[in-house]
């Protein structure tokens, strides 16, 4: 699916003496056979805010590294050489890629045991992750600290990275999934979740599946995009960009080499909605992507799914296979005469790869470093070609819009924030879980819907680590894009993490700062150094037990402004916002 190699072949690459073992060769063969070994070529330069890129088979680098990691337990010098040689990638660059990801190891762990990843983020910290880790360690398990694992509603969370055995999430073993709102007739995006058999295309069809695609084919691309625009649908991945404008821009680009990407990398601490959607309604993701493909004239679909989501991955893979077998993906989608197919790629432990341009680089086999914008993905996206990238929640909204029309869609929500919104509730709340409410529902009402606060409410983190804290006086804030903006807050990816007055907020904020420090890609100075220094200031505060001195507040503000103003991407832009809001609300820095 990626473009054909162009230009002259690269000069001979130099590989060191380390050779892959038979097992390592087999792991590489599983992804690329020796017969397909690459001749990598140079492509034209991309001068507008990006580095030049060579392609060839490089987009298979991350899958090959995953395969080595999974079979061998680490990426050895011999394994890396074997992979690099097969794909025609310089070994130094392959090493640069391997060392970018948390799930890939480039030092010999000295064992081939599974690695148990324990979440250290706020909701799990409130639910006893420390005790869990200690008991795992006592039982001899190989334990690794992990940022939010996207299972905050069932904290404390674990993910077991298998060596030679499949990866697994212990909490998945219990199969009677039920939404807290199960049976609520107001559910739209969640209407099939927990109801449909997510492994069966027939079941999906029985619940209305693939009616939207039929309507979309009948309506034609232009009318579909107009309906999306009229509905007022905006992105649910964090930036709230109008989906209709994005699709129109891609549709207007000439030529067939265009892409639709579902961004299922969900790694914002506190977010777990996309995992639930992909696990419990995978066909809806596939169907809505197909509509996006036909509407924008993009034959290539990609799903980039978080590496720590084995069940969602398996369900999506199953759905793709069944849809393909039923002629709903492939050369002639549902008799439309148009081609659309989907390739799935797994992330490998990097929050930044959810940023759209970092995600493209990750798929292309480069380090997951965001690109400077402009140019934007709609003209220079995956493989530098026009790309419509959306969050799965955004995509699933498309189904109702196409089937029922924009007016019906607008019947709930507000003028500027139409429709419903998913919220991920966790922390000190009665019934943690995924909730769907119309835009405009007050924050307090949402928390009541989730069983109300446990204990005496102290603060709510809205929008995740990249969001802001709000206090109890914000409970009557209507949850809309416009109200959030006015309050200096954000709905982000729909995170609502609730804290009561027994929680050590300094520890929470130090952890948020640590998260950004760990997840910065390191490319640009304001974020690479700013996130490090911000963390150091907060650790100093925590150790001091004193109020935050004015010159420290000034330093935090100075760093925050530089990160907002001068960073390349949204990670740097938001790395100080939760910290800043915690100081403003007096949650930290008042001494003890």
């Amino acid at each position: 699916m990626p473009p054909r190699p162009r230009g002259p072949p690269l000069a001979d690459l130099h590989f060191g003496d380390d050779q892959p073992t038979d097992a390592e060769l087999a792991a590489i063969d599983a992804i690329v056979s020796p017969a397909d070994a690459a001749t990598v070529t140079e492509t034209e330069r991309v001068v507008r805010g990006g580095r030049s890129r060579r392609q060839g088979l490089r987009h298979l680098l991350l899958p090959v590294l995953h395969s080595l990691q999974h079979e061998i337990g680490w990426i050895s010098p011999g394994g890396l050489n074997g992979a690099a040689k097969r794909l025609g990638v310089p070994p130094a660059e392959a090493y640069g890629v391997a060392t970018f990801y948390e799930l890939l190891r480039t030092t010999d762990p000295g064992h081939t045991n599974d690695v148990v990843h324990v979440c250290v983020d706020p909701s799990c910290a409130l639910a006893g992750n420390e005790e869990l880790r200690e008991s795992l360690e006592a039982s001899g398990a190989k334990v690794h600290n992990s940022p939010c694992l996207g299972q905050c509603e069932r904290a404390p969370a674990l993910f077991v990275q298998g060596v030679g055995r499949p990866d697994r999430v212990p909490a998945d073993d219990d199969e009677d999934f039920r939404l807290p709102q199960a049976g609520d007739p107001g559910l739209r995006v969640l209407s099939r979740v927990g109801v449909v058999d997510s492994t069966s295309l027939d079941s999906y069809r029985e619940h209305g599946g693939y009616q939207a695609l039929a309507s979309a084919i009948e309506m034609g691309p232009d009318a579909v995009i107009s309906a999306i625009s009229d509905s007022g649908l905006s992105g649910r991945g964090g930036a709230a960009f109008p989906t209709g404008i994005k699709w129109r821009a891609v549709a207007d680009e000439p030529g067939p080499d265009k892409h639709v990407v579902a961004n299922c990398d969900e790694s914002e601490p506190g977010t777990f909605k996309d995992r639930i959607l992909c696990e419990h309604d995978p066909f809806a993701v596939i169907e809505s992507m197909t509509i996006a493909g036909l509407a924008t004239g993009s034959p290539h679909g990609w799903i980039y799914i978080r590496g720590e989501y084995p069940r969602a991955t398996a369900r999506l893979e199953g759905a793709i296979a069944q849809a393909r077998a039923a002629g709903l993906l492939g050369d002639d989608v549902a008799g439309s005469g148009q081609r659309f197919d989907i390739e799935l790629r797994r992330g490998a432990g990097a929050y930044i790869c959810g940023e759209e341009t970092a995600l493209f680089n990750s798929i292309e086999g480069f380090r997951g470093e965001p690109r400077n914008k402009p140019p934007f993905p709609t003209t220079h996206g995956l493989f530098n070609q026009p790309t419509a990238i959306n969050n799965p929640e955004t995509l699933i909204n498309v189904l109702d819009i196409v089937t029922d029309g924009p007016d019906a869609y607008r019947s709930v929500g507000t003028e500027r924030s139409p429709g419903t919104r998913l919220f991920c509730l966790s922390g000190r709340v009665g019934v943690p879980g995924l909730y769907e409410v119309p835009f405009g529902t007050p924050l307090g009402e949402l928390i009541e819907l989730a069983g109300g606060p446990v204990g005496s409410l102290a603060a709510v983190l809205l929008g995740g680590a990249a969001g802001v804290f709000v206090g109890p006086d914000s409970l009557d804030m209507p949850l809309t894009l416009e109200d959030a903006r006015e309050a200096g807050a954000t709905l982000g990816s729909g995170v609502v993490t609730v804290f009561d007055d027994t929680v050590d907020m300094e520890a929470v904020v130090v952890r948020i700062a640590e998260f950004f420090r760990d997840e910065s890609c390191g490319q640009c100075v304001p974020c690479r150094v700013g996130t490090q220094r911000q963390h150091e200031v907060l650790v100093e505060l925590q150790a001091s037990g004193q109020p935050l001195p004015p010159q420290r507040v000034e330093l935090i503000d100075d760093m925050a402004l530089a990160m907002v103003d001068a960073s390349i991407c949204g990670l740097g832009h938001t790395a100080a916002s939760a910290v800043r809001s915690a100081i403003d609300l007096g949650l930290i820095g008042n001494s003890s």
Partner: protein
Amino acid sequence: MSPAVTETAVTIRVDGQEVAVPEGATILDACDAAGVETPTICYGPTLTPVNVCRVCVVELDGSRALVPSCSRPAEEGMVVHTDSERVRHSRKMVIEFLATGVDVSQADELGQWAEHYGADPDRYVPGGETMNEPVRVQDNLYIRDYDKCVLCYRCVEACGDDAQHTYAISVAGRGFGARISTEFDVTLPDSACVYCGNCVAVCPTNALQFKTEYDLRQADDWRPEDQSVTQTVCSYCGVGCNLELHVQDNQIVKCTSPDDHDVTRGNLCIKGRFGWNYV
């Protein structure tokens, strides 16, 4: 001085001054044309802009965040401010940030800008993380002192797509732990390196240094003020690369090549760059 206005020129406003630049030129080019000096670290005239250091940012009307002047193409009608409060603040912070973790004592230009913007690297938490890397002395040609590395990516680009196409080095790791590295940090002699020295030529901080310079500095005997530069044409092959031989006490101590030479664009091969070592 503004270049001649051609049909394909774009006109933008830099600090209130109208300036015309050819289409495809960057905001940085326009600033140069307007006579406005701009600090740069990761930008190199012979390299594809990577826009990672962010010290060259400017305020662009209509853009929420500041934009990197070195990579942003100038577009008709743009209004740019290079000396606003926000610009000065971000530039100062970038320089300050670098100085808190990296030994920038030999990055002369950066030092001047630090003073200009009033950077104060001492106001941070004592004992903060630094690069903390040993000097890599692995051959007689050049050394790598990553304590001085600001991760500007210039060496990586020079070794890769922008000049040498050898790809011996890359950025490895992530965040504050990112480092320039060969695969598994193998020594240069074990890596793909062909000792063209092009990385040394583009390094803005002296993290990459000729071994001769390093030895003299170690002996406290590096005296640029006593050095003379001799222009010559490399005699190893017929390409005709220009060499600038830097001489101290009748000894050649390093070799550069002019950026604006249309054959070399500042790049050489091992023979031109280091051949004098064996003369």
